[in-house]
């Protein structure tokens, strides 16, 4: 099995871009990643691309080069980009290819995700009854978590405020204006206790990463970053997750817990070793919960940690240094690749105003989405 290095990363900014197509954004992201790696599209042996809205991400080849290479499209809801990275890395690990591109894009309509629940095998009444919504799940989950573990609404506001501040330092972010905590708390309640400004919004963007066999990386990168582990997990019977009509009485933990454990085990790394953390902040509550689910603290510790500024860029466990989903929005196909882009910048010392000090060596990324699927990636220098 070969080790895998990331030799280039690229982004198209996240936000809203009028008539610009997601495919055009993907082409820009791929171009940026190729430039970052100092490699040409004609040297790329294969590619995998993910998107929710775009049925054929591989159609980007019309813009980047019709070289006839194998291209596969990937979709795994909010875990899409991490899944794209995993499949791209796996092909290199297994020795089928030496160098490939993992990319993702999306261009979502405004407002919450919606659709026909029957597509997922759920009954039509679930949608007609107003239950086929992702946000209510997050409201329920954090509401219960706060009740059981003593987390306050002020902590949720602090998390959102941190991510807006970090977004202000990120030229590629969607929301770049800091928002004060009391404004966050006083914005309309969407799903109690989550207010409007505590939620991310679906938007538009693209990202790409160039992966290659680790022993070839020095041809391209002076400071390669290595993908040490990648784990995808789906929900188990006892877990109550997004888009569920019921849950078992005997609870099981969320797929994030299992994905994180598997990734740490695969890499031989512990949570204490991690220097920079990116988690799925669908809403501020999800960031709080994922801190514990990923193994970075015990349930309830978040109240004091966040009050003490531990998760700020300057703190001992920086979380969502580029503003996360709250500041960047969520184009599903690109989100996990945005996290990896930020981790690579951090580990190379290229994160500018967002740079975590002390020469970070280990980066962690986690995504989670419907119908209860999580993916974790671990990167090191």
């Amino acid at each position, binding site marked *: 099995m070969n080790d895998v290095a990331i030799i280039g990363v690229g982004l198209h900014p996240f936000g809203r871009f009028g008539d610009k197509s997601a495919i055009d954004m993907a082409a820009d992201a791929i171009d940026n990643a190729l430039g970052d790696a100092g490699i040409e599209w004609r040297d790329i042996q294969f590619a995998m691309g993910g998107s929710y809205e775009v049925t054929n991400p591989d159609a980007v080849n019309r813009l980047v080069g019709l070289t006839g290479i194998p291209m596969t499209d990937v979709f795994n809801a909010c875990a899409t980009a991490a899944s794209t990275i995993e499949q791209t890395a796996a092909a290199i690990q297994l020795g089928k290819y030496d160098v490939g591109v993992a990319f993702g894009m999306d261009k979502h309509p405004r407002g919450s995700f919606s659709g026909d629940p029957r597509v997922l095998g759920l009954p039509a009444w679930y949608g007609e009854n107003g239950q086929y919504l992702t946000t*209510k799940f997050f409201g329920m989950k954090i509401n219960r978590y706060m009740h059981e573990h003593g987390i306050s609404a002020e902590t949720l506001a602090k998390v959102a405020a941190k991510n807006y501040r970090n977004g202000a330092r990120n030229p590629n972010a969607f929301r770049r204006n800091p928002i004060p905590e009391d404004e966050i708390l006083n914005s309309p309640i*969407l799903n109690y206790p989550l207010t409007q400004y505590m939620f991310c919004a679906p938007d538009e963007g693209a990202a790409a990463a160039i992966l290659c066999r680790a022993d070839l990386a020095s041809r391209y990168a002076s400071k390669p970053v290595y993908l040490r582990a990648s784990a995808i997990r789906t929900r188990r019977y006892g877990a109550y997750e997004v888009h569920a009509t019921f849950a078992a009485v005997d609870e099981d933990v969320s797929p994030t817990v299992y994905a994180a454990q598997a990734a740490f085990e695969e890499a031989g790394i512990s949570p204490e070793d991690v220097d920079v953390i990116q988690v799925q902040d669908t809403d501020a509550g999800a960031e709080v919960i994922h801190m514990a689910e990923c193994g970075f603290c015990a349930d309830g510790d978040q109240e004091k940690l966040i009050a003490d500024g531990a998760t700020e860029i300057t703190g001992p466990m920086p979380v969502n240094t580029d503003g996360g989903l709250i500041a960047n929005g969520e184009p599903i196909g690109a989100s996990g690749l945005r996290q990896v882009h930020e981790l690579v910048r951090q580990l190379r010392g290229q994160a500018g105003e967002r740079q975590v000090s002390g020469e970070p060596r280990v980066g962690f990324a986690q995504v989670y989405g419907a119908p209860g699927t999580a993916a974790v990636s671990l990167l090191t220098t």
Partner: protein
Amino acid sequence: MQKALAPDVSTWPDENPQLIGSRCDACGATTFPRQSRCPRCSAGTMSDLLLPRRGTVVAWTTQGFVPKLPYAGSDTAETFQPFGVGLVQLEDVVRVEGRLTENDPAKLRFGMEVELVMVPFFVDKDGDEVMTFAFAPVGENN
């Protein structure tokens, strides 16, 4: 005339209606609504199960904005009244996600006892009142 949004998931219009789930003959796992395969052991031998009418609220939130289609309610963004949504544990059988008749966060309590009710939801194009299932605090419904 009244009819159910989801006729297959409850015994309504029986008096004291019950939700209908299923239980696996092989391993005992329960689901709501009924399904043909067991999500725990994968066996294909599920039997219908009438669920207890009462339970306790394990998790709750409010739905504060009008859902997009296929939401069947006649509310608009202006007329929409938030509704409660919760995960209700029905004895030790199963936890069901459903609407709560209480929508005030100040009155919703973790562990509160609730009971299945049928509530009017919207009037359809034939003029029939479409009912849906929900959970109401015990004691308010007698």
